[in-house]
């Protein structure tokens, strides 16, 4: 590649006349070259790693005698396996202990910044990136975790990768990938009271299906999205992958810049204004072209919960569980399997279904604003004696900020356990697990069979406020009815 070409591509990204969307602008400015397979060699600005999907990648580097090309573009933390009751080392689970030892050692050996527990900055990788100001508009961001799409809330192109690709990014700061198509999803209007970003994304997945997004990046826009704060946009983008879309993003705007201003890794001084101008230039042009456009009215969206074994098997809390003849031919097989597994019946309301566990947390809904919103409603209420209820902050910073606001007391007084930061019961790689056939009302992102640690455990996904309502009544409940009375 010669310098002329490089200069041209910078100009293209700033050219307003090309009707380009953000995805294509960012892609073009990060394309190193076209590989012989036809894939793009894509430059990665920010690489996040955690303890589960990185150790094998470092092993591969060592066995090939390779170094990390840009150690200052990779940041690490520990989230999946970390216990949330006690941080005492060594962990009781020796396998978990091995993994935390390995990531620390790997980071030290290769010169990578590690946000361990001792730094006070540990947390779920998708909570830590934004709160440190590492996540910025126009960046390409990858992590060996499919919920990397979360970072798209800032107008970055962010997606999950496998461990061999983690190795590729460590060794070359690039990866081989095919360009995606872009689907614009407009959501317009005001959300009804008691309807949250979580309901919006569950509604979108229900409407477009769990594989509807394969081959696409989702660009979310419209007045509903513009009105969302950054944490709500993160919830939205987080679950793009559950709809099959590896990437989901929102164009950067003043809210994005306000969030990032003065964060630890945000540009400072003179650079800040230049950065903002550059970021603005990356937003999709007003006449940008898309491969597909979907329009959704906010008023259609109710508090949404899942009834099945994938996040597309979702319904309004007001509706009845669908029957076989209400779903598409291709979804009939999974419907039967799901109802059997969940022990639910078609044409019945889901409200009233007994729960055993309530989980508030995860990279989807473990941020400060999630906890603040729930705390408003649980103040003075009591968790049902039949329910084990956990609140797991997304990061040590979220925990600290919540405690500074006294939220821990509100939760504890209501009967919730107030835990340390981590992924916890979202995927139950740490000691927080369902037992047997327990049913969990969960603010996390996946309701797959066995997802929450028991091979026969059951998950119903919903917003954190809906989880709180279920915790209090002991059954799946329309939070609007419970809390407005």
């Amino acid at each position, binding site marked *: *590649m010669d*310098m002329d070409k*490089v200069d041209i591509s*910078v100009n293209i990204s700033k050219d307003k006349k090309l009707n380009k969307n953000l995805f294509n602008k960012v892609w073009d*400015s990060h394309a*190193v070259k076209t590989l*012989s*397979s*036809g*894939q793009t*060699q894509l430059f990665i*600005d920010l690489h996040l790693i955690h303890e*589960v*999907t990185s*150790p*094998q990648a470092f*092993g591969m580097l060592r066995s*090939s005698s*390779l170094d990390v090309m840009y150690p200052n573009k990779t940041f690490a933390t520990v989230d999946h396996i970390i216990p949330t009751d006690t941080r005492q080392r060594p962990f009781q*689970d020796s*396998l*978990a202990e091995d993994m935390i030892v390995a990531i620390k050692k790997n980071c030290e050996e290769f010169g990578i910044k590690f946000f361990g527990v001792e730094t006070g900055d540990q947390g779920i990788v998708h909570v830590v990136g934004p709160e440190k100001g590492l996540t910025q508009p126009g960046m390409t961001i990858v992590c*060996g*975790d*499919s919920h990397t799409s979360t970072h798209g809330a800032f107008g970055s192109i962010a*997606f*999950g*990768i*496998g*461990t*061999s*690709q983690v190795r*590729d990014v460590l*060794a*070359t700061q*690039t*990866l*081989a990938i*095919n360009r995606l198509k872009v689907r614009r999803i407009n959501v317009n209007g005001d959300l009804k009271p008691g309807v949250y970003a979580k309901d919006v994304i569950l509604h979108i997945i229900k409407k477009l299906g769990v*594989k509807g997004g*394969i081959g696409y990046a989702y660009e979310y826009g419209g007045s509903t999205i513009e009105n969302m704060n950054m944490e709500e946009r993160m919830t939205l983008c987080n679950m793009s*992958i559950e709809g*099959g879309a*590896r990437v989901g993003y929102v164009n950067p705007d003043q809210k994005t810049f306000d969030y990032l201003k003065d964060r630890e890794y945000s540009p400072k001084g003179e*650079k800040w204004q*230049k950065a903002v101008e550059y970021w603005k230039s990356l937003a999709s042009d007003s006449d940008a072209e898309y491969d597909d456009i979907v329009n959704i009215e906010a008023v259609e969206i109710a508090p949404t919960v899942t009834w099945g074994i994938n996040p597309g098997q979702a319904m309004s809390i007001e509706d009845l569980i669908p029957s076989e003849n209400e779903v598409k031919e*291709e*979804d009939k*097989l*999974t419907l039967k399997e799901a109802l059997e597994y969940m022990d639910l019946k078609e044409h019945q309301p889901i409200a009233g279904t007994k729960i055993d566990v309530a989980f508030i947390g995860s990279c989807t809904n473990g941020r400060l604003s999630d906890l603040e919103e729930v705390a408003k409603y649980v103040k003075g209420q009591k968790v049902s004696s039949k329910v084990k209820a956990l609140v797991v902050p997304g990061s040590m910073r979220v925990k600290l900020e919540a405690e500074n606001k006294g939220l821990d007391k509100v939760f504890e007084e209501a009967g919730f356990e107030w835990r340390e930061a981590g992924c916890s019961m979202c*995927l*139950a*790689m740490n000691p927080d697990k369902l037992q047997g056939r327990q049913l969990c009302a969960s603010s996390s992102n*996946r309701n*797959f*069979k*066995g997802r929450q*640690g028991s*091979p*026969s455990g059951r998950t119903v996904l919903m917003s954190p406020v809906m989880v709180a309502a279920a915790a209090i009544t002991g059954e799946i409940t329309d939070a609007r009815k419970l809390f407005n009375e």
Partner: protein
Amino acid sequence: MSLNKITKVQGTAVYVSGDDIDTDRIIPARFMKCVTFDGLGQYAFYDVRFDENGNSKDHPMDKAEHKEATILISGKNFGCGSSREHAPQSLYHWGIRAIIAESYAEIFFGNCTMLGIPCITLSKEQIEKIAVLIQKNPSLNLEIDLMTNKLFLDTESIEFQIPESSKLSLMEGRWDSLGELLDGKDAIKLTAKKLESAY
């Protein structure tokens, strides 16, 4: 780095029926507490194959006639969910060398190609037909020929789909992308410089 050129995969097949089979089902998260992929083969589809006491549930993968299978057949959106490479690694270590399905989740598909596992696509009808043939004759030999995009079985052949970039990488022995990415080091540095000076 020199890799095998993968032009053909042949062997017997095992049919794991179902749509939207996610990577948590392929490899439950509790088995990811490891710092190497070796040994993951025994945990592939663990909770579908074994009950909570570790007793076999007589899953197709555990039937004597399928134990040597090299080709896995399933439904649509295979491998959805998590990006964990542990999923294709567990299948690979169990003995799987190619997958036939109606469609695949994107990250899973990329992870498979990276390990040299071709993921080919057939229609629901074609898959159901093959499943019946395998049920009748579990030792039926299948041959996936990437050169001609044809699956040979019995006396017939069926045309399959596979994205061109994946097919080329496999056939030309470049399925593990690292070698080619490393070749572009100078271009990488130029791109890095350009992006760093964007503002």
